[in-house]
């Protein structure tokens, strides 16, 4: 563990990423305490520019709602959607990849054609269609993002399992009479964990970008304040009020950047062999 941390912290970007993400997580958790007002409530006159009132540091939007409060509550939605949809995508992708890689043959063919189909379909367009048809709410958004983001997981796991499958210790496990399920679960999957963790951290970043893009188009959960929604609502008044779209965008950028940096750091720390290749 200390070895892991040493390798991780050698990547300066990754440490910066951890710090940024920690701030975002803290803000998301503390939002109800820091900003007891609902982010939907009108608190001041509309279009109050930033830094003009200490109480509303980043100004107010077209309906007089506090931008800073919106940002804090938006962090909750971004992190929630990012994490839950990634977990859901892993729950779909890992079994499909593991089964395809372990059993090979016809099972591999069928599962990989299925995966290829989802990889070919334009993912953002599919996500839009899914959320629109099943009505925009937090569940449909998470489900749609999971549906479009599991294929890379399946492919990664399949590749890893394929290369582990021919190792001697797996053959020994088969000879010792263990069931396939036990071998996949206890012998194969634990050894594929590092690349999955790296991929997952990058997937959370992509999911946050996807969520913000969906809410920007008006496909966000109508009961939850999100960064994408704030920018989408400010789009038509950009000439009068730049700050309404500027600050939420910076929030998305920093969060996604932090996750990407962490992903690279994890890659350095968990796959030292692979990491050296690209450097």
């Amino acid at each position, binding site marked *: 563990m200390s070895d892991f941390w040493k390798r991780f912290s050698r990547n300066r970007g990754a440490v910066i990423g951890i710090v940024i993400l920690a701030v975002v997580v803290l803000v998301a958790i503390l939002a109800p305490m820091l900003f007891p007002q609902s982010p939907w409530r009108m608190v001041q006159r509309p279009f109050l520019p930033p830094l003009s009132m200490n109480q509303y540091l980043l100004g107010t939007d077209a309906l007089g709602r506090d931008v800073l409060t919106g940002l804090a509550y938006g962090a909750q939605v971004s992190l929630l959607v990012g994490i839950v949809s990634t977990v859901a995508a892993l729950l779909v992708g890992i079994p499909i990849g593991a089964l395809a890689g372990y059993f090979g043959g016809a099972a591999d063919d069928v599962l990989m054609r299925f995966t290829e189909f989802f990889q070919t379909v334009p993912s953002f367009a599919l996500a839009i269609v899914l959320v629109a*048809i099943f009505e925009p709410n937090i569940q449909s958004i998470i489900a749609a993002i999971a549906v479009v983001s599991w294929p890379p997981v399946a492919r990664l796991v399949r590749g890893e399992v394929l290369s582990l499958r021919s190792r001697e210790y797996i053959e020994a496990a088969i000879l010792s009479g263990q069931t396939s399920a036990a071998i996949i679960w206890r012998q194969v999957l634990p050894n594929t964990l590092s690349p999955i963790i790296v991929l997952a951290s990058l997937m959370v970043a992509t999911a946050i970008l996807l969520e913000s893009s969906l809410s920007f188009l008006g496909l966000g959960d109508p009961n939850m304040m999100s960064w994408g929604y704030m920018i989408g609502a400010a789009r038509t008044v*950009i000439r009068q009020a730049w700050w309404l779209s500027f600050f939420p965008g910076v929030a998305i950028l920093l969060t996604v950047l932090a996750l*990407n940096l962490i992903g690279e750091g994890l890659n350095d720390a968990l796959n030292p062999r692979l990491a050296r290749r690209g450097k």
Partner: protein
Amino acid sequence: MLRFILMRLVKAAIILIAILTLNFFLIHAAPGDPAAVLAGEAGAADAQFIEQLRERFGLDKPLLTQLGIYLGGVLQLDLGYSYRQQMPVADLIFARLPATLLLTLTAFVIALVLGTLAGVLASARVGKWSDTVISTLALLFYATPLFWVALMAVLVFSVFLNWLPGFGYETVGANYTGFRRALDIAQHLILPATTLGLFFMAVYMRMTRASMLEVSQLDFVKTARAKGLKPGIIQRRHIFRNAMLPVVTLAGLQAGQLVGGAVLTETVFAWPGIGRLMFEALAQRDYNLLLGIFFVSAAMVLLFNLITDILYRVVDPRIRVAS
């Protein structure tokens, strides 16, 4: 080669049929009456129209028969009727398709050319400040939401600096013709195409840089160096050509995202393509139009993929020989 293209076309056809089947089941999975879904927002269509739809799509027949009717219609390029826009869906889409093709192809070329150039530059100066600057920029572009960078571009280059138009396809009411019109469209194209290309530029840059560095470690490059070839020649003929292979593969896989990104870019810039049409369909809950656009954009992605696959064979003689 011909056999390869034929095989790929068959595969593409199967995928398209699968997408149509998915569309069909989505219409039925949507909350409410499928006829109402086909007609657009519930309540927008009158009872007589709904009845017509029910008859045409055989909505009282078994599900599989309905699927047959639906697929048969699409084969005749009939994607249904948009009640909201009072026009056949196929006509709406094909009228908007050229604008989207212009936008995505320009963005693709910008991203590929600038991305690989920056990647080559960075790989040649690993660890120096120019590498750091390029890599940091790529990292930032990679994390920036597409719609936000588009809005900021409008703000800076159109509102504050007033250098470029930030809205539309051409100057409304100017009635330019010929070369003057092409120039006008090109001016309108710069901001949307560049902002759409930015994310992909970052992807290609990172890939090119990593790939160049990897290839430069290989034995044949060492041999070339040992022979005393000039570094510039090694860089161009030996490393670059081999390093481009994974970049071409990636570019093909990314085509789908480019089409998806067009929805956001076209919405911000009021670019009259199918992305903007999708946004309009969303706002009006015009599901039939939405599914039609989804289908056509998937077909576009398949076409992009086919082109890159053919390109790949042209670029890499090893595959040509093997097949």
